[in-house]
């Protein structure tokens, strides 16, 4: 064979049995606090919505004559009477991001404001990116964003419900809500810009988090059939431990990739990558510490031998 033979490094101490269930009250407590905190942040500080949701304009320009003077620009553009004009330096000293808030008075006015700013900037700046979102579109995008997240959650719940017992579906719902809330909470806390791409990131996080939950749930179901007498908490612990090496390895490769995206993927998608990075961490945590322990609280039907085995999916799983 062309591939040299060498053994992989099994980093994971498989004989160790971590007692996750012992800490479930603590984890639930922490998570409930974190979720409430996120809600509180959301309702008090709110989110730093991007132009997608808030309307207004965003202009990224590059100075053609050396580093851009942010404070000079601030005074220059602040005097245009366009309300709050935010100016932010970017990675390169020549690059500046200008945000103009949505102007009152409808759609055409936004374009007028944009033109004013561009005229005021003059020839010394090269436009790299312009985004103008009018009031109608921004309100539509807000609705779309909310619908997207809710639709994704419902689709996933239905799927999990169909494939597993209702307790699993409920556990998944709680875990997903937890993931979305916490990610949103962090965005609120650090006032990171929240735009349409973050919604896409949230959807991906949902997909990943469920992926994780499903892997653990599959194992729980398998073990429920295998160890009919084992105490439920012990069984949950066993299942989590058995899948832990996988959870960690997949989590690490995904994280490494996302770190690469966040650091090297460029300014435009930095927040998008960051949201996913956060979400993957939260999602992994929630499948181990939220979704699985919840089954312990809810109680899962132990007798799978009867009607459950008759289900084609369950039968296939049992056979393997």
């Amino acid at each position: 064979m062309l591939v040299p033979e060498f053994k992989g490094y099994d980093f994971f101490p498989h004989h160790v049995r971590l007692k996750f269930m012992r800490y479930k009250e603590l984890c639930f407590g922490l998570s409930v606090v974190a979720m409430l905190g996120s809600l509180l942040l959301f309702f008090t500080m709110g989110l730093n919505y991007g132009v997608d949701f808030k309307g207004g304009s965003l202009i990224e320009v590059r100075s053609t004559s050396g580093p851009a003077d942010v404070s000079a620009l601030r005074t220059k553009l602040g005097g245009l009477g366009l309300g709050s004009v935010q100016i932010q330096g970017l990675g390169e000293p020549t690059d500046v991001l200008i945000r103009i808030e949505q102007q009152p008075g409808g759609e055409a006015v936004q374009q007028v404001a944009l033109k004013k700013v561009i005229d005021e900037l003059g020839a010394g700046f090269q436009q790299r990116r312009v985004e103008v979102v009018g009031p109608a579109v921004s309100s539509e995008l807000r609705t779309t964003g909310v619908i997207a997240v809710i639709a994704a959650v419902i689709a996933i719940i239905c799927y999990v419900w169909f494939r597993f017992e209702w307790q699993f579906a409920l556990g998944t719902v709680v875990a997903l809500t937890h993931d979305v809330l916490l990610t949103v909470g962090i965005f609120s806390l650090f006032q990171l810009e929240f735009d349409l791409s973050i919604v896409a990131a949230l959807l991906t996080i949902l997909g990943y988090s469920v992926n994780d939950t499903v892997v653990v749930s599959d194992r729980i179901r398998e073990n429920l059939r295998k160890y009919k007498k084992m105490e439920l908490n012990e069984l949950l612990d066993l299942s989590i431990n058995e899948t832990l090496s996988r959870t960690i390895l997949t989590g690490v490769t995904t994280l490494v990739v996302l770190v690469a995206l966040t650091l090297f993927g460029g300014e435009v998608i930095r927040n998008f990558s960051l949201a996913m990075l956060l979400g993957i961490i939260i999602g992994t945590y929630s499948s181990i510490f939220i979704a699985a322990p919840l089954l312990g609280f809810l109680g899962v039907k132990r007798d799978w031998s009867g009607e459950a085995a008759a289900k084609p999916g369950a039968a296939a799983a049992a056979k393997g």
Partner: protein
Amino acid sequence: MLHFSRAKMLLIALVCVFGFLATLPNFVSKETLANWPGFLPKQQLNLGLDLKGGAHLLLEMDRTELVKDWLINIQGDVRKRLRDAKIRYTGLGATASEVRVTLVDAADRDKALTELRTIATPIGNALVGTSGNDVEIAAGDGLLLTLTPTEPGIRQRLAHAATAAIEVVRRRIDALGTTEPSIVRQGEDRILVQVPGFDDTAKLKALIGQTAKLSFHDVHQNITAEEAQATRVPLGYRLYPDQENPQIEYLLQETPIIFGEDLVDAQPGFDSRTNEPIISFRFNQRAARVFGDFTSKNVGRPFAIVLDNGVIEGKRDVKVLSAPVIREPILGGSGQISGGFSVEEAGNLAIQLRSGALPTTLTIVEERSVGPALGADSIEAGTRAFLIGGIATVILTTIAYGTFGVFAVIGLLVNAVLILGIMSMMGATLTLPGIAGFVLTIGMAVDANVLIYERIREELRNGKPPTSAIDAGFSRAMITIADSQLTTLFAAFIMFWLGSGPIRGFAVTLTIGIFTSVFTAVTVTRLLIALWVANKNATSGRRWTVPI
């Protein structure tokens, strides 16, 4: 699970070769591609506007204006029908949603209704048949009759207007001579314009958003504009400001002699004597005759050339370009105008005149444009993130699973090639979030391998012999893989359904990535391992261990 028939192996190999061939065009220049033999795929990846640079404009038609214009038309129709039928009426007028007319004589009511009903036309298409009329005519109490445009009627108008507007916008952008723009209707009253590789959005917007209509008007014979200002403007006349000096006004007949629609061509050029930028134009035959008649009868008198620029920044912009005195009859139906234009203005104006008027004002409700420089930077950043993330994944996988890790890495490479190949073949668009999706897919695709390999390790720990442990690893992990990938697929579908542009690009990459990663993890890697096992069994007999 470790047995592959020859046919299956061949099929897997074919899929991989196909993926490789379909990806190849992206790494060679267009010139090389043109010389490729015909049987090879030539499709290159479509880059989204955020990578290639370009402008994305979402335009909204003015529904209210459209209805208002229609109501004015209906009003004219009512006037004509009633006059022709010799039915007397008082108070003909339009509200925001209907036309009202009050008859003088109650005896005319039925006759009037019959007459007015001819205004309405049935709405319908070949498939569904008719579905009511576009205007509803009703008799109120007593002498009042109302004509109300119906909702389906308005929708039909919007649809027609959208088709017309798309045509006009296309002609205008084509005149710029850039790459293929995409102009499509979105929803009921919106038009999405995407022009790749064009960074001068200011010019684009000016060209799209403005309507320019040229018309020729008769100047009032006896009353000057000053007199009209001082007293009153006679019926059927209006005051129009001069283009260069808005203080100067002209008193012109409101109904033009020649309408903007009669113009068949307009070209920018230079005056042969003064070298000033001009626009030369040509009328259609009918208008040429009308204009010939008019100029023959009115030698020695002035007429006015009026430019209607439509609504600019909320105000209607109509002005008189010039009011020359007719020296001799103008018979050929062509001429030229000079209005103190700059070369660029003359060029733009000619495009606008040539492409005809927009059926309604188009407002920009969303604009996203990316300069080519930023696009190139994004591609560079995306590629860098892909390489770094990919290399890290390769290292991690190889360390964790040894030889089998290398098999997984080969699977990943095939996966990457297949994603690019399928996207190229499908003509899917790669956006910046799409690159992120691609990178993420590589990271997540390892998941399938991790699930399988961890399972194999577990089976080995439980004391199973190597071959059956590998076998069990694959078959048991399979269900979990399917379950977990399906849920990400849901999320991707929803993004595609609700998202636009860049987000859709992300959803597309993610979806393709899910399918290819399952394929590569459970077939390509499995095939490699099956071959390895077969080789082991042949060389080392039954006495070998799994390097995992």
